[in-house]
């Protein structure tokens, strides 16, 4: 016997589709290619925090000016770390820097950078290998709020503590504390890094190529997208890469099962580092 209960903690997948459809019609935000369960969870969480129900939400999307910006910024996941997966940074240096060193100028892109930790980690790694001078980094995200945070380069000291653990396992020889200044309960990343990164809005769902890069980092971003949207984004990365440029995905993501795989060489199969070869 099936017990029929109304569980008020959850919205249905039909409700989800309706919200996505509404949002798409009245704004530039198209969430239809996002992973459904994760997006649905974020919306459920948003409703609880804002003490709203579905009717309130639909009303707000339709009638409150600017609500859609706030809503989408609360939905996208901004959780990130400095030197996340320390082994990745070790291998990035070992396997891609010998190529990158041959370029007189480098352009690097942290796509879906959220609050900027990954872009700053890359900048520090470049600096330690004497490549920062000739580099320019772009950090892009769909969330303006996250980008504001990233531009400031100020992180709570409590977080810097766990970043230090990561840093120490990344095979870098400098002291992590030499890359920031601590004051009260926060740390500000050194100026030379902040000056080398342009944080700017870019939506992987709808925006296009804006430059040519030797390296693209996009780790743990595409997990929020379904297969078709992943396909689109991978094509965008392919077109944005210089020949022999590198693409780095998260440790649980891969090009496996994507047709575009044939245009890349696997540089590291566990850490998902790829090189464009045609």
């Amino acid at each position, binding site marked *: 016997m099936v017990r029929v209960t109304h569980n008020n903690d959850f919205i249905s997948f039909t409700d989800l589709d309706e919200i996505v459809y509404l949002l798409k019609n009245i704004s530039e935000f198209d969430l239809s290619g996002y*992973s459904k369960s994760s997006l649905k*969870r974020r919306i459920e969480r948003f409703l609880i925090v804002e003490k709203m129900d579905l009717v309130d939400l639909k009303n707000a999307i339709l009638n409150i000016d600017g609500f859609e910006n706030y809503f989408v910024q609360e939905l996208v996941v901004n959780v990130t770390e400095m030197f996340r997966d320390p*082994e990745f940074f070790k291998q990035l240096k070992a396997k891609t820097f010998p190529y990158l060193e041959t370029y007189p100028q480098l352009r690097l892109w942290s796509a879906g950078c959220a609050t900027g930790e990954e872009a700053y980690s890359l900048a520090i790694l470049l600096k330690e290998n004497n490549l920062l001078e000739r580099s320019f980094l772009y950090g892009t995200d769909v969330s303006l709020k996250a980008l504001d945070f990233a531009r400031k380069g100020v992180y709570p000291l409590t977080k810097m503590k766990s970043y230090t653990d990561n840093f120490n396992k990344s095979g870098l020889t400098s002291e992590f504390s030499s890359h920031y200044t601590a004051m009260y309960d926060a740390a500000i990343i050194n100026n030379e890094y902040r000056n080398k990164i342009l944080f700017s809005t870019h939506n992987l769902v709808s925006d296009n190529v804006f430059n040519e890069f030797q390296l693209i980092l996009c780790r743990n971003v595409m997990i929020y997208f379904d297969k078709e949207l*992943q396909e689109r984004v991978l094509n965008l990365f392919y077109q944005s890469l210089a020949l022999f440029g590198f693409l780095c995905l998260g440790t649980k993501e891969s090009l496996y099962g994507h047709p575009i795989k044939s245009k890349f060489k696997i540089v590291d199969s566990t850490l998902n580092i790829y090189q464009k070869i045609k």
Partner: protein
Amino acid sequence: MTGNADKIVLIGGSAGSLLLIAEILEQLPVRLGYALCIIIHRSPTFSSEIEQNLSKKLNRPVVAVLDKMPIENDIIYFAPPGYHLLIEPDKTFALDSSEHVNYSKPSIDVLFETCAQVYQTNCSAFLLSGANTDGAHGLKTVEDFGGKTFIQKPEDALIDTMPLSGIQETHTSTILKNQEIIRYFSYNLRST
């Protein structure tokens, strides 16, 4: 590609559950007729090789889930550390690296809740030994959507916090001793 598993069985556990899980897996028949997904709390800092070791020992596929992997019959899946594991309506896995839930990532609640809504009556869930209350709400969700729920007998659990909170949250859960759990899995579940 979408998954072919019409039925899924979930096992959630934390501290003190791994030995029992290993015993369960050793008794599993080759043909399950369902997908088995195991989620235990473990640290991403130490890359553990549970999946490879078990796969070799059991001589069958034991898979650490990758993003958008289709859910297939007869395969044993493990939730990777450092991510939440969710089930998509097209019967694929999805990963999510958002905030911890119940101080845990992966959180058992997140997997159980999303799986219950997709698989509904075709989802069964087991909650085993553990030192926090993660999983109890998820177990209730499985129950609410018509799935079967099972809890390790608190006296048999190394740490009984998790089973006790599961018992408190749900109404229809079957409480099983360790040997009963192992026996349950040693039969083909198609008959249940």
